[in-house]
């Protein structure tokens, strides 16, 4: 068997051009496949990490995103006093009553406007969301027209940076700091004081209320208590689940489109592999005959040709994956169709994707190499030896 493997390896080396072209075709297919999965996992990681398991978010019943929701002050007060809410060091409940508004800002270097999400947050916001850290400047002062911006925003929009002012809702807002939210969706947001944002946009109801749970398992009790309260028209969800749901529409679009494309493209690569292997079989008839005459079994011949195809696929897989891993340097910003605001994320390579693309490449190699290998193993010794 080692002999046959060495034989396959040498054959690939002899037909460098052909082998390189076949593996190249497979590499491109693997690249598309892996890139799609990386894009999808990047999107989901960003949104999943936005939510925290220890938080619950309360929005109006049947609202899927915060911009559709309204929770008035009275309801917010009832929510605050629920016993399942964690109390902070100062004796106040750890609750952030938030208001979410979309504004259109010009992107750097173009006239095009993009939607940016402005979040008015309560004083406890940073305690409720420990993943958010101020990395530059300082937090806004409550009750002032100051805002802090997410890390992914700076540089993307015209005139948005620490120390500058931006104008919306007929006010100039001083940008006093920049925060890092660990690559989550908050990195694409602007945060300000919720009281000021409410006033500036002439609203008198919050969009959502985020509470820190005293006990992670307390969610069901909180849900039970608040959803059955006749004074409230809200829905309680775990924050992580809430944000994960926002990725579903875009994520399934990317997946469906990407996977059906890779399947179609792989047809091309499989055909390429099949052509190469058929040619290899045809030009080596005499050698096959000799091997069989020496006593190698049909199955050994079959495996040696299959191994050759798999080897080709492995080379293609490695090249394709290297190419795809370069995509990790690319930052993607796109409109999330569910929230209608811009979201920044990165291609993310995970071990699962490495394995999935390996399986995909191996499948291409096996499918492409199987029929030619069968033909090789079926050759009659006498005919094969006679062949020119």
């Amino acid at each position, binding site marked *: 068997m080692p002999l046959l493997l060495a034989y396959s390896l040498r054959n690939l080396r002899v037909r460098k051009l052909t082998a390189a*072209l076949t593996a190249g075709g497979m590499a491109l297919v693997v690249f*598309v496949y892996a890139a799609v999965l990386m894009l999808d996992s990047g999107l989901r990681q960003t949104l999943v990490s936005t939510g925290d398991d220890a938080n619950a978010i309360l929005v109006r019943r*049947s609202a899927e995103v915060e911009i559709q929701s309204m929770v008035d002050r009275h309801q917010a007060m009832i929510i605050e006093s629920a016993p399942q809410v964690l109390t902070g060091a100062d004796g106040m409940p750890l609750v952030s009553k938030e208001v979410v508004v979309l504004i259109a800002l010009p992107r750097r270097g173009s006239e095009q406007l993009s939607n940016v999400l402005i979040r008015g947050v309560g004083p406890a916001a940073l305690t409720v969301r420990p993943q958010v850290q101020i990395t530059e400047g300082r937090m806004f002062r409550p009750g002032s027209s100051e805002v802090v911006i997410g890390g992914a925003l700076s540089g993307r929009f015209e005139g948005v940076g620490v120390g500058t002012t931006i104008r919306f809702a007929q006010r100039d807002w001083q940008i006093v700091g920049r925060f890092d939210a660990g690559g989550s969706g908050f990195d694409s947001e602007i945060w300000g004081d919720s009281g000021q944002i409410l006033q500036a946009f*002439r609203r008198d109801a919050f969009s959502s209320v985020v509470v820190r749970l005293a006990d992670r398992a307390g969610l069901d009790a909180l849900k039970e208590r608040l959803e059955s309260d006749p004074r409230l*028209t809200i829905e309680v969800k775990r924050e992580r689940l809430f944000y994960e749901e926002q990725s579903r529409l875009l994520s399934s679009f990317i997946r469906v489109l990407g996977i059906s*494309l890779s399947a179609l493209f792989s047809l*091309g690569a499989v055909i390429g592999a099949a052509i190469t292997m*058929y040619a290899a079989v045809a*030009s080596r008839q005499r050698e096959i005959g000799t091997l069989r005459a020496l006593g190698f079994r049909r199955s050994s011949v079959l495996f040696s040709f299959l191994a050759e195809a798999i080897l080709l696929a492995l080379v293609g897989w490695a090249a394709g994956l290297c190419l795809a891993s370069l995509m990790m340097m690319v930052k993607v910003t796109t*409109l999330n169709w569910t929230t209608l605001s811009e979201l920044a994320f990165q291609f993310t390579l995970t071990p699962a994707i490495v394995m999935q693309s390996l399986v995909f490449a191996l499948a291409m190699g096996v499918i492409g190499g199987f029929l030619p290998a069968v033909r090789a193993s079926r050759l009659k010794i006498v005919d094969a030896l006679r062949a020119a």
Partner: protein
Amino acid sequence: MSQWLKLVARNAMRHRLRTVLTLAGLIAAILAFGVLQTIVAAWYAGVDSAVPSRLITRNAISFMAPLPVSYGKRIRAVEGVRNLTYVNWFGGIYKEPRNFFPQLAVDAETYFDVYQENLISTEARSAFLRDRRGAIVGRKLANRYGFEPGDVIQLKGTIYPGDWELVIQGIFDGRDPKTDTSQLIFRWDYLNETLRIRSRAQAELTGFFVVDVTSADRVAEVSHAIDSMFRNSSAETFTETERAFQIGFMKQTETILVAVRIVSFVVIFIILAVMANTMAMTARERLSEYATLKALGFGPGYVARLILGESVVIALVGGAIAIALTPLAAAHLGGLTATLFPSLSVSWSTVALQGISALAVGVLAALLPMRRAASIGIVDGLRSVG
């Protein structure tokens, strides 16, 4: 010449299995390329079908922020405005969240005067005006769910809480195939009247105004007049042409479009690799024949042309079959994704691009083998064993 053609044709058919496999790959790739280009084009369909003399006035904050409906009267008074209607995105759920289609609350009196590309019968229109809970559905949407006039449907509001009952009063058709007929429209006054009771803060507001300007030359002037009228008011406006409005929306999802475009070119490279492989193999096997031809006195150019001819013939046949199949594939896909794309029709530029890329694949694939075959010495060639 005829002899050359004969040789090319014979050569192409020598390895039937190989030629058929290569053809299959080519067809799949060129077909995928055409379908992807069509999808990208469909994405921009809204931009193409935008009416040049139509303006959209929205809240300057963003298109999610509403405007007071009372602005309509003041905008109507601006010189150069011929007609005006207002439209409000409803965003309700029909039975299940995955049954997505646009639902718009519109001003029933003026909507069809402004949106003249949405054709409706006079009876349906007057029925719509008579019934406050009336709704009109586009032809495509009606076909999708089997809606018929008289049907009562219920929508669950996401932005506007509660259940909303509507009675379908008619179906509108598109003036041309590009018109989007996958929407449902119903009366804004019905929405507003209910909101006054259920959710006061959301009442008396609309999403945006659609302004019909007397001529396309005046749009800049009119949009400026509208925006300066509301400057420093509680809700400043932002007015742009329908085309700019659509482009603005597209631009934000541009990353995905760019990705689809890139991927559509990647498939051409994949098939180029496959095709080049086929030709390299073919030429390699026939080196001794080429040497024989040369020994008989044919020049290196003739030999090279033989390879080029074979490659181009296979590529063009594959390309032609793929082009013929593209409209069928697009129509099938259009049926599956009726909600996403209003129209999936293959444009001439897509066909041209498919043809060009098939030709390019044929020529490029032949280059290396051509050089090799043309430059090989007679003696070496005669000695070589495939």
